[in-house]
């Protein structure tokens, strides 16, 4: 027993004796989802005394994220968590990290190379696919659909689009119009005013790569007293999405987990030299009026 206690203490000491610095190169803290991701990592790291977090915001800029990662490398952090903004260019700097023996944990977004240690994210393609299925059914497999795209080149955005479009290929009566709003409510407001108010286009449904962009759409509708009577499907499931779903002004949302908690947990496994999968897919849930009441939003 005494030996067990001593060994445990030594283990603890050995574990506690080493502090680990996690560098987090966030994509854009102004975006609620990424902010939620950051909060989740921070909160999770806060639960572990041997972990220290250095978080850097890239403000949606690939150059800034690269600078941040370079800085984290220079600062010799122990781990780097990053949602890479550009799949190819980001891979170059991440490659530098790996060359410097810094494990790279990709969350929510992927890169175009294998220069990472682990990747954790829901299946964006599947979400896009499921969203198309739900929406096509709602509009009875015909009509005009307006798609609000996320950030260009971001794998999340690309895959959400690809999944959606792949499903709709079988329904030629459904046409899709794409507009880019970079996951941002502010950009969505501009685009919506242009499409609906200036161009006076009409659509039968809206598919948005994020719920934040749908918030912007509804603000424009309310501002111009336009009826919100077409089905809208968003991703992320934030507070506004829950309220809209319960009010009936949003048809559905997909929970898109930030993967922050999971990333820290993987790091702990690495520290503890435990085994882990290189690619980890996080589950998602369709939220509609039926279940929204009982499921808390992501952020």
């Amino acid at each position: 027993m005494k030996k067990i206690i001593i060994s445990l203490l030594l283990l603890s000491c050995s574990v506690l004796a080493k502090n680990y610095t996690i560098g987090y190169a966030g994509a854009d803290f102004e975006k609620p989802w990424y902010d939620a991701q950051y909060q989740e990592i921070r909160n999770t790291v806060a639960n572990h005394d041997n972990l220290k977090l250095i978080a850097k915001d890239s403000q949606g800029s690939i150059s800034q994220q690269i600078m941040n990662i370079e800085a984290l490398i220079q600062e010799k952090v122990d781990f780097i968590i990053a949602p890479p903004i550009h799949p190819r260019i980001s891979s170059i700097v991440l490659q530098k990290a790996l060359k410097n023996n810094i494990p790279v944990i990709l969350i929510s977004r992927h890169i175009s190379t294998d220069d990472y240690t682990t990747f954790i994210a829901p299946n964006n393609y599947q979400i896009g696919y499921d969203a198309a299925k739900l929406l096509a059914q709602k509009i009875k497999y015909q009509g005009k659909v307006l798609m609000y795209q996320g950030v260009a080149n971001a794998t999340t955005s690309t895959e959400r689009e690809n999944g959606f479009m792949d499903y709709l290929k079988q329904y030629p009566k459904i046409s899709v119009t794409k507009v880019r709003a970079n996951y941002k409510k502010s950009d969505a407001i501009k685009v919506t005013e242009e499409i609906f108010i200036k161009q006076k286009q009409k659509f039968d449904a809206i598919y948005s790569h994020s719920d934040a962009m749908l918030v912007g759409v509804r603000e424009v509708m309310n501002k111009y007293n336009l009826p919100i009577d077409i089905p809208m499907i968003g991703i992320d499931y934030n507070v506004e999405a829950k309220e809209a779903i319960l009010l009936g002004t949003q048809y559905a949302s997909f929970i898109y987990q930030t993967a922050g908690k999971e990333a820290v947990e993987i790091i702990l496994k690495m520290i503890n030299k435990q085994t882990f999968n290189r690619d980890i897919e996080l589950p998602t849930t369709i939220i509609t009026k039926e279940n929204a009441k009982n499921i808390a939003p992501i952020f």
Partner: protein
Amino acid sequence: MTLKGKLFIWLLIIITTSTALSAIIYYNSMNSLYNKQIQNDHKHDTSIVLNHFNGIKNNIKFLNDDITKNNEFIASLNLIVNYQDENNYDKEVFDNEKYSIIKKTTKWLSTSNNTSIAIYDMNKDLLMSSTRSTNQTSVQIQSYDQSNNKIFLDDNKQLIPKKDLKILKLNSPLNTFATHKEDNQFHLCYTTMLYSLDKPLGYLHVCYILDEANVKEIRKNTVHDLVFEIHNQQILSSIKIIPLLWNKIKNNQYYIVSKSAITENKNDLNFYIITNKKTMQEQLKDTILLTILISFSVFIATFFVSLIIIKKYVLDPISYLRDALNTIYPGLKNKEFKPQNTDELQQMRHEINHIGTNLKKNLAFLKSYQELMDEGSMTSKSDLEGQITYANDRFLKATGYTLEEVLYKPHNILRDPNTPKSTYEKMWRDIKEKKTWRGILKNRCKDGSSIWTKTVIRPILDEKNEIVEYIAMRNDITELIDQRKELERVATTDVLTGFKNRYKLLQTLKSDRYCMLAIINIDNFRQINDFYGHEFGDKVIIALGQTIKNYLDKTPHWDIFHLRADEFVMLCTHCDDQEKATNTISQLQSHIRSQSFLLDKQLLSLRTSIGISYEKQDSLLMTADIALKYAKKESKDVVIYTDDNPLQKEYENNIKWTFIIETAIKNDKIVPYFQPIYNNHTNKIEKYESLVRLIDEEGKVISPFFFLEIAKQTKFYKQITKKVIEKSFENFKDKPYEFSINLSINDILDSEIKTFIYNMLEKYEIGQQVVFEIVESESIANFDDIHEFIQNVKDYGCKIAIDDFGTGYSNFEYLMKLNADYVKIDGSMIKNINVNKNAQLVVSTIVNFSQQLGMQTIAEYVEDNKIQTIVESLGIDYSQGYLHGKPDKQIQ
């Protein structure tokens, strides 16, 4: 010259001179002033330009700092430099990133015109550049085409042709300002190294672009022109300068050039402040012209303003002062004082000096006068109600009052109750009418006694000519009055008899009313005097007077006067009954005759004559006197004057002739007539006698027989004598004859006539022709005076003739004493000489006597040849008479 004229001229001279001197001084100082000004301007301009470029340099450095410290910029550049793959160029990512940088640089340049920002990689190849010039931005962005060839895009992502590309290779030193020329622009640039996380990324190259427009913009803040020179070769200037001539201009004496360096390397970028001296001289000329114009304007303005000011503050006050002076001047100016002929101020100075002197004199005089007045006069003042407000010591002493007793008491405390009220009423009327009242007042003193004062009262007037007080000056003449009364009494009282005298009688006749006057006179009183002596005679007179008084005292209405010697006048004031009055006098006459006067043991009876007159008052005395004379003449006791009194006729004749004589004198009608005197030896007329004639108003020639005796009793006689003398001299002044003028002894004794004769002799210088015929109808009492006259006129060459010799007072003694030259034998002896042998004998004696004394003889009244023959036979030298010519106004 007047003060105005002098001031005008002086003002003109002073302002003209000062303006001209100022202009000359100004002109002389302008060159150096301009040179100094230009030097200062150059310093100023240099400072302006250097400050401008210091600002630009600072701005560039600030810009450098901003850029190098901008994380986003560094991140973007880091991405481009380190992650860009030429062979696999991600256009969307890298072009966007570069445009993002350009967007930032554009923002940086938005506040910095004429500035460029360029970024070069480590190979000093251009990555991108942004240039802001004339508010426009041009960019060059490195990119790659689809074939991975390097290209440059503009801000619209359009390809920039190679010919339009600017410097693509960096060639500037680090961390210092350096310049280079591009087209027609000078670039002042600062280059720094860019780092990312301590690793060099590339180069930042910030330039300020200086072009012509910019130079002109700087020139707006400088006084003089600017020239920027780069590498001692090319220039940019604010004026057009041919580059080839620039080196000549720099060293040209006609230009003033100041050189300064903008960069540390002095051959890099310099600027010059240049000034063309010719321009300066033109400016100087303009300035001088402007100065002359301003000076002239100032001169005119100053001149007129000075005139106005001088008029308002000098001339007008002097004029007012002069007027004020003139108001006091007349009273203080001596009549003979005349100010010097200078200006008003000098005149005023003379006048004020003159007035001051006179004022001092006057004040001294007034002081003395006041002291004298206080000493000699009783002075008091009273207010408008007559209450005493001032009294001097003399006043108080004379009246016996103290000052407290008289102050604010009315002046009438001095009033004598016997003085008529009208006197005071007139006094008040006069002084209230601002007149001076003069008079003699009797004043009552405190003790009840009276004093006589000669009083002058006059009002004191204020500046508005209103009465404020009255001042009275009194001189105590009580003693004088008493003396006058005594004198009056003495003057009107006969010393001998104690009766009122002739003077009093005449006064009385002028004032009081009398109806009858009687004059009583003692007959033959001269004999009493001669026999008993004058002292006894006086006693007789006293006794007569007393007798008259005693008699007339019994009856009222009579006044008695002692007229003269033995004459008394009795005046009757009550004439209701003339007969009664006459009877009273007649009875007085009888009373006197019946009286025996015992005087000095001599018993004497007196006979008197009385003349009475009831005529008008102003002729009472005269008419009574005529009546008395008539009584004397006719040996009557009492004669009452009547108009037909014979004496009256005689007096009337005298009065008539007196009037005729006066009229003739006034009308120059007293003329000499000339009767020729014949020389019995030469048988020629050689002399004339001047004889006086009067031409009456009808032109009738009047003989002196009618008027000469009357004239002798009047004041006109002397004038007649003078007329005859003067006109005789005038008539004979250019004639070859002697002429004789008749003079009486009284004429010779009269100093006025004597002086007149001497003056005539002096004036006409014809003494040799003049013969004075002395009429010896009167005895000569004082031969000395006569002798002196004869001697004096003989000194002038005159001769003396004795007129009417043989009658009257003339005798042989006269002839000798008078030293006569001629003896005129009286006509009464000549005219009968042919029939009266005695006359012939007397005449012969006179002739002989005269001849022995060396005197020549003249026979008067030679009326015919018989007489002439006898006259000649008797040896008389000259004949005068109708035979030889009557008196005529013309000389034959």
